[in-house]
């Protein structure tokens, strides 16, 4: 960065002002811009679900978002990555959830809570085509350590 010690220098002064400046235009349009962006769909593959009246499809993006909500609702855990794959019939084949856990959390117990929350959410979303509880496996692997409590706090 340039040396802007000389506040009598008009360029230095103007630069300082611009750094602190929030254009009024942004204040006016930001809410609309955000709302329109959030209404947009993300490109997403369909996942087949089944209820009493037949089959239906749900966007994998929606499925991931709902599973994230369920995972993040479990204390001391937050999802870092969720991927799902489907088979040729577009039925859910695999969901992989990576989480960050608070230091000191009992990981096996946490895994059980996450397991239950995930199965419940998938059952809610996909009905009869949700995987059985026994088909959802939990693997505990410590991949990284963070000392930032904001990683798992809402």
């Amino acid at each position: 960065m340039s040396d802007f010690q000389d506040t009598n220098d008009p360029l230095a002064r103007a630069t300082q002002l611009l750094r602190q400046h929030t254009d009024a235009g942004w204040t006016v349009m930001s809410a609309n811009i955000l709302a329109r962006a959030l209404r947009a769909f993300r490109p997403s593959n369909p996942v087949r679900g089944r209820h009493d009246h037949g089959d239906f499809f749900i966007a994998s993006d929606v499925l991931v978002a709902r599973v994230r909500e369920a995972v993040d609702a479990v204390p001391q855990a937050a999802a870092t990555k969720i991927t799902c794959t489907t088979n040729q019939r577009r039925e859910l084949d695999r969901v992989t959830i990576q989480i960050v856990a608070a230091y000191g959390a009992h990981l096996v117990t946490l895994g059980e809570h996450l397991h239950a929350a995930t199965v419940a959410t998938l059952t809610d979303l996909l009905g009869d085509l949700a995987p059985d509880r026994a088909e959802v496996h939990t693997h505990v692997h410590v991949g990284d350590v963070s000392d930032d409590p904001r990683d798992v706090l809402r």
Partner: protein
Amino acid sequence: MPRPTDPPAARPAVPGPAQPPDEVLTRRAALGDKEAFAAIVGRHGPALYRYAYRLLDDPSGIEDVLQDTCLDAWRGLPRFRGDSSLRTWLFTLTRHRVHTLRPRFSPSASRPHVDIDDAVNQVPAPHADPAQHNIDSSLLQALDAALRLLPVRQRSAWILKEIEDLSYAEIATVLAVTADSVRGLLERARASLAHSMKEWR
């Protein structure tokens, strides 16, 4: 490394101690958390506006640029790998959108399409009575006018460095040039701006 005497650069983007860092917001937004995305837009939006507004020769396109940038960000977050910082990525998306909107007036497309006389006239007269004007507002106006006289890549590099405090490497990523090119662009931009603004002394 900034010297202790340097004034702080624009930092609305730095989260407070209780606010989630960009990495956490990015992760959540990628997984469909709309609140996290709103926090990202709230944190970085003012800087993106500041940048895009000054890159556009016709600021009437600013809303389209930022709308498309936000859409690109929302749709692209699931694939964002974190090779650069979120902030650098957002500036890159913004620059691409500005570039898409900017008409190509010349083969090089590097010179700003502005009426030079208009731009020069916007630099307030050095002998105007300061008491009659809001000095700060006039100074900002003068800087904006001087910036519009710069070729767009110089303008872009100068704003990202001096206003947004990006590193040379980050600016190089945003502009898709080498760090050495960034140094050259900045050198020329600083010289031109100093010349344009010296009347204000």
